[in-house]
């Protein structure tokens, strides 16, 4: 195992790493407890704490970078959280290249989005509370990535879930926002159960959840245990990262304000699943975990295709971007599923994606801000002239996403596709082919967006928004455009810079990046990807760019489009499998609760012998029913006890 850089005790600059958590948390506490008094300066405090955390993060980064590679993993003990007998949960932070990378992403993008939100939320009278929730999110997310045990991670995991829930339901007056928030919460709980079970399995078999101990001991466990933990962790990742089959909540989560979509549901929180798997790389790298890794790859591949296909059919600006996020996270999951050949690539794509997708979302927010919150792309069009800065920054993000040569996506996505081709045997062809196909689809739906929103005829000219106002598109103010510009610069240059440095920097955390040599070499894959992307973009241009588009979506469409519009029936699947039986069960139990108790009791009584007839004719009083149900229970318990003994 080449990745076990020993952790040493944090000292010096790293000794104050708890500041990272405390700064935004204090901001959130002051804003929430201070109430309306803090309205005037609340947004400044909120942004200030996150920027301060970012500055500290940068200092910490350079401090760590100055150390030799094997000394870059530090452990900061904060306090003993639970310590009884053999159960010992330490609350501590782990400062290593992987967590530092995330710290910089979270606080960096977080700072930009805080600044952007000052302008975006300026009309909202609860702007202060919004910043409090954002701060809460940043603090929880930092805890998630900095914690030094799976329990601490779980702590942050639940915290970001709470913040996400609160922010999705921000427009609480609207019904769909409340429903979306609930849906996100519930689907996340499904994943959380998986993560919790994985943690319990670690406790049972290893007796600890500290990363150091778990990763040192996991190799001694049986294949069954390792695979079970691997798959349960993956279930947790699926819930948080919107992976198949738990992807349906993420597009609905776009009901929240756009900065939230950019920060939480594109750049940071939804990538927590990728972090979890990369952090558990010593587990997934084990030979016993081969099967678990294969499942990870399948989930990633399935999700990336599903996300692309559905993204082609939606007419809602933010929902297309959301499905694009789903599919790009699919790429990252596929990458980390490849094992040592892919951990660093997954993280690389995560970072570049964090930049360009946040930029794309902020661009979408800027468009909607100037267009009376109109999100239906069929009612937009020709906005390039009205919003030049938004158009240029958005287009740069777009080019980065589809992998235009030498922009960010080119370095990160192509590397993943090449690594997928490098997988063993037929797997390489299958996963590489799927990833390649995804690149073409991505180019198709993103080009469609670009054409329908920014190019073509201004279809909004003769329309009015839902509240009866005419559209007067205008460019947004500097607090919104400056973050967009910074992110656009990141989208252009990030890939080139990071792809050279990141693998070596991450080595102490996720191990050395293993070069794979598949049937196609890297150059061939690059050319293929660019070619397929060009074809996708050309097809989109042929369909959407040359003809006038209707303002309402056509209803008479072929089956594939219908299926894609219906989320490939993901919601139907969930409904048929979980929700409808749940509803039936509840109805049935209501029936039992209201009327059936007596019937049930009488039924048991009938089984007891001839007395049932008489009992039924007796007046039904509740106490009697209760007593009979107790009697029934007692008879069952005693009969069972005696049967166990004498059977």
């Amino acid at each position: 195992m080449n990745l076990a850089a020993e952790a040493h005790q944090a000292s010096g600059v790293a000794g104050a790493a708890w500041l990272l958590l405390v700064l935004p948390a204090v901001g959130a506490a002051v804003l929430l407890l201070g109430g309306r008094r803090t309205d005037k300066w609340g947004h400044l405090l909120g942004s200030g704490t996150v920027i301060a955390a970012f500055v500290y993060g940068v200092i910490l980064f350079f401090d760590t970078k100055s150390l030799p590679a094997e000394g870059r993993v530090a452990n900061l003990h904060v306090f003993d959280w639970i310590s009884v007998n053999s159960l010992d949960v330490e609350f501590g932070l782990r400062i290593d290249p992987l967590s530092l990378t995330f710290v910089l992403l979270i606080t960096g993008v977080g700072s930009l989005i805080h600044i952007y939100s000052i302008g975006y939320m300026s009309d909202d009278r609860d702007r202060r509370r919004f910043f409090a929730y954002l701060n809460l999110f940043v603090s929880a997310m930092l805890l998630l990535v900095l914690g030094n045990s799976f329990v601490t991670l779980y702590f942050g995991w639940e915290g970001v879930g709470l913040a996400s829930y609160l922010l999705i339901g921000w427009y609480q007056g609207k019904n769909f926002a409340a429903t979306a928030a609930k849906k996100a919460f519930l689907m996340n709980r499904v994943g959380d159960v998986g993560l919790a079970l994985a943690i319990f399995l670690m406790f049972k078999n290893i007796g600890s959840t500290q990363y150091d101990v778990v990763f040192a001991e996991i190799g001694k466990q049986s294949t069954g245990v390792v695979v079970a933990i691997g798959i349960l962790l993956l279930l947790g990742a699926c819930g948080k990262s919107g992976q198949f089959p738990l992807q349906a909540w993420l597009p609905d989560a776009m009901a929240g304000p756009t900065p939230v979509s950019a920060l939480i549901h594109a750049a940071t929180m939804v990538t927590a699943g990728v972090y979890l798997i990369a952090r558990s790389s010593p587990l997934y790298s084990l030979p016993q975990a081969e099967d678990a890794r294969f499942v990870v790859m399948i989930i990633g591949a399935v999700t990336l295709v599903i996300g692309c296909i559905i993204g082609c059919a939606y007419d809602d600006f933010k929902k297309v971007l959301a499905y694009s996020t789903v599919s790009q996270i699919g790429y990252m999951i596929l990458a980390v599923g490849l094992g040592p050949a892919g951990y660093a690539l997954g993280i690389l794509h995560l970072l570049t994606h964090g930049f360009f997708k946040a930029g794309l979302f902020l661009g979408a927010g800027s468009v909607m801000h100037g267009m009376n919150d109109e999100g239906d792309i069929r009612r937009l069009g020709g906005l390039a002239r009205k919003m030049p800065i938004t158009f240029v920054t958005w287009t740069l993000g777009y080019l980065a996403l589809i992998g235009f040569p030498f922009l960010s996506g080119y370095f990160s996505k192509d590397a993943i596709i090449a690594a997928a081709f490098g997988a063993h045997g037929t797997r390489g062809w299958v996963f590489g082919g799927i990833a390649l196909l995804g690149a073409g689809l991505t180019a198709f739906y993103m080009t469609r967006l670009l054409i329908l929103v920014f190019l073509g005829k201004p279809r909004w000219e003769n329309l009015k928004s839902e509240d009866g106002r005419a559209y007067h598109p205008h460019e947004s103010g500097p607090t919104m455009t400056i973050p967009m510009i910074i992110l656009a610069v990141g989208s252009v240059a990030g890939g080139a810079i990071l792809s050279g440095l990141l693998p070596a920097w991450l080595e102490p955390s996720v191990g050395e990046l293993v070069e794979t040599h598949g049937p196609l070499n890297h150059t061939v894959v690059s050319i293929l990807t660019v070619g397929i992307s060009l074809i996708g973009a050309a097809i989109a241009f042929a369909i959407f760019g040359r003809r006038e588009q209707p303002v309402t979506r056509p209803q008479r469409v072929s089956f594939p489009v219908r299926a894609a519009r219906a989320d490939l029936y993901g919601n139907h699947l969930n409904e048929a499998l979980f929700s409808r039986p749940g509803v039936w069960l509840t109805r049935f139990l209501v029936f039992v609760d209201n009327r059936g108790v007596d019937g049930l009791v009488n039924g048991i009584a009938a089984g007891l012998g001839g007395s049932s007839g008489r009992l039924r004719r007796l007046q039904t009083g509740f106490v009697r029913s209760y007593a009979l149900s107790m009697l029934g229970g007692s008879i069952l318990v005693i009969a069972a006890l005696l049967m166990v003994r004498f059977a």
Partner: protein
Amino acid sequence: MSVISSVLLLAQEQAPLPVPSDTKVQAPSLGAVWPVLIVLGAACLGVLLEALLPRHLRWSTQVVLSLLAVVGAGIALVAYVSDAPAAGELAMKGTLAIDRPGLFLWGTLLALALGAVLLIADRSVEPGGAFVASAAIRPGTLQDRAQVTSTGMQTEVFPLTLFALGGMMTFCVANDLLTMFVALEVLSLPLYLMCGLARRRRLLSQESAVKYFLLGAFASAFFLYGVALLYGYAGSVRLSDISSAAAGTDRSDTLLFAGMGLLVIGLLFKASVGPFHTWTPDVYQGAPTPVTAFMAACTKVAAFGGILRVLQVAFESTQWEWRGVLWGVAIVSMVIGAVLGLTQTDVKRMIAYSSVAHAGFLLIGSIALTEKGLSGTLFYLLTYGFTTLAAFGVISLVRDSSGEATHLSQWAGLAKRSPLLAGVFTFLLLALAGIPLTSGFVGKFVVFEAAIADGMAPLVVVALIASAVAAFFYLRVIVLMYFSEPAADGPTVTVPGAFTTAAITLGVLVTLLLGLAPAFALDWAGSGAFAIH
């Protein structure tokens, strides 16, 4: 006092057992039982004062007396704990086993009772207190209306609370089944009465008292029958004798298992474990809210204290025979509590079903007969008690013209009217749901961890699913409070007086503290095992 001691003596005569020679027999050690003596003594004194004092002095005197008794008992407990033998000791001729878990339960009970007494004593939320002047007045009559408007408060409830508390404390440390039965009745009878004392919604309250009494009597009969069968089997009612009889004889096991089943059913009833929970929703709903708070918190602690002791001391050697059955009971309880809770429309009934689900979780910890199982369950009881106590305290504050507004639709949009109250209640609901940063999370964590370590992983899976389902109905209330428009003629939130504020603050602080830094309480809970003599 005299009742107790004479019954205890009787128990001795009925079970004339030579004390095993290897046990150190001590002279009746009063130091160990001072806390119980103080509580029961104060209860008797309270009855006397009730008869002798003029009406206008009674409330203040009784409140001071009750608080002094609880605090005094707490001080006596602390003083004893500092030099108590680590392995525990016997008191009252071996009928009481004062050991570490017993002392932890005593501490929990006294702290919870302090909160409950404060809630009961409050006269600011409902002018004149939550209790009827005279239970004999029929609802709707002239006298009834007169006493609704009167401001005096009837004070029988204080001695009744102390008697119940004394019974609970004895119950947790009872070393033989007959003492346990007597303690069970001492704790139950006052509770039956207290349930029927509500000033508002008299019929509902009295109905709940009758139901609780009838079903309680039914359960007591089960318990007593179980004791009889076990005596037939072991020739003794002492827990340790039953244990040694079960370990080393070739007597027919039918008596043992039938007796154990009946006995445990009696205990499960008190702990409102499904399917023996049927009384819980009706009684929680009907009883005056401060009494519900007392019952929900303290009775649960006492009942599980008894269950833990019986299972660990008397039936440990036969655990492989009965364990599967209690698995089933735990599953039924969790499922009933979580699923039926979904359809409740009354806040108090909802908390009642939640308590059934929690009883299932607690039962999981109780059947893990390990050190961790014991300490985890004890800790869980501590956390659950305080959270529930505070939750009922909050419920008592939301009122409309006809008393408490417990229908869920009336809670819609409450956050707009009273953000602080909604925030506190949200925190408590999150604690009940077991979200991190609250004591509920740590409690569930330690109990499930103990269960998995003892090979009950499938049960923990069911428990996790049940708690996920249950989280939904807690969440529903939060959504209702924050995201719904308030009803036009909705309830108002009463500004609580000092007593209720103190009780709620106590509950919330403990919930928060045990969520952030549970280590010290876990240490106490794990400081020793049951004494087996």
